[in-house]
């Protein structure tokens, strides 16, 4: 059935779509768009906003109908831009705006508001409604993350359907009657589902706003950068909004193969560490028992000296939050040093059936791929305390919450730490500290739980003289005799093909905005269709991909 195609005409163009396709989807597939509020590709059809009016001729003359709930049928003629269709949308706009407060100057949605956009496109310049507007509660807390403004709401029920269909908790509904209709949390409680901030994304107007981002900045000032969430091994695609070199919000970016349009609340709020007070801005070397700031040259020399002296007695804990490029370089360093005592630290994360995987390491698959695991007969992390090793390399990792291991580290002769903020481990044990950066400040790729390589991109500049980890690891490797230091993460990825044939021909650009699956033993470049990508920076400032991805 799904393969059966129907042929219809849209705005004079003949198109073929699978049977069962809605007209609004057919128009979107053409690259055009029909205005819509309540329809969302990831939700069931409600058909209540009535803005998606088109004119359709099915052989019984033209009539205006909503396109979101109309199946394409053979011979159908669709007119999306005809005068009656436009007039119908204008009438719907006028009705929607009767009770809308028009408080755009204080509304956070302004700039990515469908109501604004369509009003600008075909709204009237004034209201014919002479009576006082109906007023409803404003800034109501739906939960600690979500605020609700009933006046702005157009009752499209996207949020209601999301909670029911996607988050699996039917906790929102419409209450009251007629023009007193409003959204309310069921049983008068708070929203509790772990994906509730997605309702803010999909809300086409400013009715639902994020408490965290509320009044932080107008959205048009945000620099939007496409990246990947670093909180779990799902690797949800994100769009990071930054301003004043600060992350102000993180919203999901559409990727059908990974996270579709969604993202968990905890993941999207996991950017506070970028602005932490104890960020490292300069290398440090321990002198007379105290960590003091040092030059990069001095710190790198000390690190190399310590690593070489340690040799196969080095214990290496390489973080699985590092990018593939960094893991590759770390692997190179460990091979040069010649140690087998390699491991990464497991991290837990809530687990559910929707997105959250339970594995808090965004690149655990990458770590396994590059062999970040103890060799035969070597000590892993669990055996660290009893290993008796005298040197350690904590690459982007700490052991703050493991007192026994900390004690073991403290007893060592040499401990090299890299990381982006000062940890208890560094304060107590480190001989040399090299400042790295967060995943918001560097280029690279993560491999998610399904073996999909996805690109992360920098949206902030790093504090002080901190260097991206690929850069400092590359410099370490070069000083250990591993050839020339790489000049970019992309260069590292391109050079991996020599030792990892399945990565042959890959580059950050070729990963594309949606990433690339790496089936075992298959060269990715053979997947012809996926190799065409949209260049280096797919999301640039001012391009409003957030709206499109989140509330399409």
């Amino acid at each position, binding site marked *: 059935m799904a393969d059966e195609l129907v042929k219809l005409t849209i705005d004079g163009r003949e198109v073929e779509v699978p049977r069962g396709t809605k007209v609004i989807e057919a128009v979107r597939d053409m690259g055009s768009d029909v205005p819509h509020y309540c329809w969302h590709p990831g939700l069931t059809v409600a058909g209540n906003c009535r803005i998606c009016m088109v004119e359709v001729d099915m052989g019984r003359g033209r009539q205006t109908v909503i396109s979101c709930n109309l199946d394409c049928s053979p011979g159908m003629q669709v007119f999306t831009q005809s005068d009656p269709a436009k007039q119908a949308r204008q009438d719907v706009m006028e009705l929607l705006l009767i009770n809308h407060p028009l408080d755009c*100057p*204080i509304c956070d949605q302004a700039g990515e508001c469908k109501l604004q956009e369509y009003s600008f496109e075909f709204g009237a310049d004034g209201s014919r409604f002479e009576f006082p507007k109906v007023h409803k509660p*404003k800034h109501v807390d739906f939960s600690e993350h979500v605020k609700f403004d009933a006046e702005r709401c157009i009752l499209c029920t996207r949020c209601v359907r999301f909670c029911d269909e996607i988050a699996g908790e039917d906790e929102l509904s419409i209450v009251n009657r007629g023009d007193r209709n409003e959204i309310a949390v069921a049983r008068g409680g708070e929203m509790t589902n772990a994906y509730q901030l997605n309702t803010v994304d999909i809300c086409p107007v400013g009715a639902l706003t994020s408490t965290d981002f509320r*009044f932080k900045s*107008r959205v048009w000032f945000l620099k939007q950068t496409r990246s990947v969430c670093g909180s779990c091994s799902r690797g949800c695609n994100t769009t990071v909004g930054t301003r004043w070199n600060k992350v102000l919000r993180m919203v999901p970016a559409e990727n059908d193969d990974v996270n579709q349009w969604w993202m968990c609340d905890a993941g999207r709020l996991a950017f506070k560490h970028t602005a932490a007070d104890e960020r490292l801005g300069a290398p440090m070397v321990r002198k007379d028992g105290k960590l003091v700031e040092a030059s990069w040259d001095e710190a790198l020399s000390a690190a190399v000296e310590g690593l070489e002296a340690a040799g196969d007695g080095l214990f290496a804990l390489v973080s699985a939050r590092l990018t593939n490029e960094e893991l590759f370089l770390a692997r190179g360093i460990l091979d040069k040093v010649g140690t087998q005592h390699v491991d990464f630290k497991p991290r837990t994360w809530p687990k559910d059936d929707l997105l959250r995987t339970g594995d808090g390491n965004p690149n655990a698959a990458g770590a396994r791929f590059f062999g970040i695991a103890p060799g035969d007969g070597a000590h892993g992390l669990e055996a660290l305390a009893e290993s008796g090793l005298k040197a350690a390399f904590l690459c982007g990792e700490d052991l703050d919450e493991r007192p026994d291991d900390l004690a073991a580290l403290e007893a060592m002769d040499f401990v090299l730490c890299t990381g982006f903020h000062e940890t208890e481990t560094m304060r107590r044990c480190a001989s040399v500290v090299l400042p790295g950066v967060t995943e918001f400040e560097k280029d690279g790729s993560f491999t998610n739980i399904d073996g999909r390589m996805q690109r992360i991109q920098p949206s902030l500049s790093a504090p002080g003289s901190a260097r991206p980890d690929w850069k400092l690891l590359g410099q370490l490797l070069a000083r250990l005799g591993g050839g020339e230091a790489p000049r970019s993460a992309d260069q590292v990825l391109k050079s991996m093909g020599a030792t990892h044939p399945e990565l042959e021909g890959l580059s950050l650009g070729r990963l594309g905005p949606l990433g690339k699956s790496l089936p075992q033993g298959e060269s990715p470049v053979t997947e012809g269709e996926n190799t065409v990508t949209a260049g280096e920076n797919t999301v640039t400032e001012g391009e409003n991909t957030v709206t499109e991805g989140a509330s399409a």
Partner: protein
Amino acid sequence: MSYVKVSRRELTLAEKLYLPSILAGLKNTMSHLLRRGDNEITTMQYPEEKWDLPSYYRGVPVLVKDEDEREKCVACSLCEFVCPPRAISIIPKQIEGVVEKAPEVFDIDMLRCIFCGYCEEVCPEQAIFMSKEYEICGQTREELVYPMDKLYELGKTLGTDGGVKDAPKKWETLAREQGQQGLASDQDA
């Protein structure tokens, strides 16, 4: 013919000598010094005398309050967006009351401001106006970044609502309507 030959008049001896015209020039300037004819002093003694500013004059942009001393600005940041030299910087904050937002920080860098008036034009709340103030001076660059309280202080020269008669009172209307519909209790702080 592609060109026209223009012959200059032959100068007389007196003209060639320059001296008569030099004397004429001296006579002319002396008549100005002695204020002969309608030669009046044309300059203005600045700090004491000041230019009568036309109504369309655009001086320092200032913020105004309404007649209830309420901030009109809601930190919508449209002026910040429209400002060609990016002289304005705003950080919003949440407040209690009918209006939920107000500026926490509202700085205008007078060294950057080009007095174009776009901010006044774009403001949806009629909260920013181009004043008649033009004497801007300071010892440091920082001093010339006018903070919010200074902008409100300067705004007082225009009177409440920027001197606009029948300024829109949309928030007042909103509060009244909310009150009539029984929503005032949890709104007006």
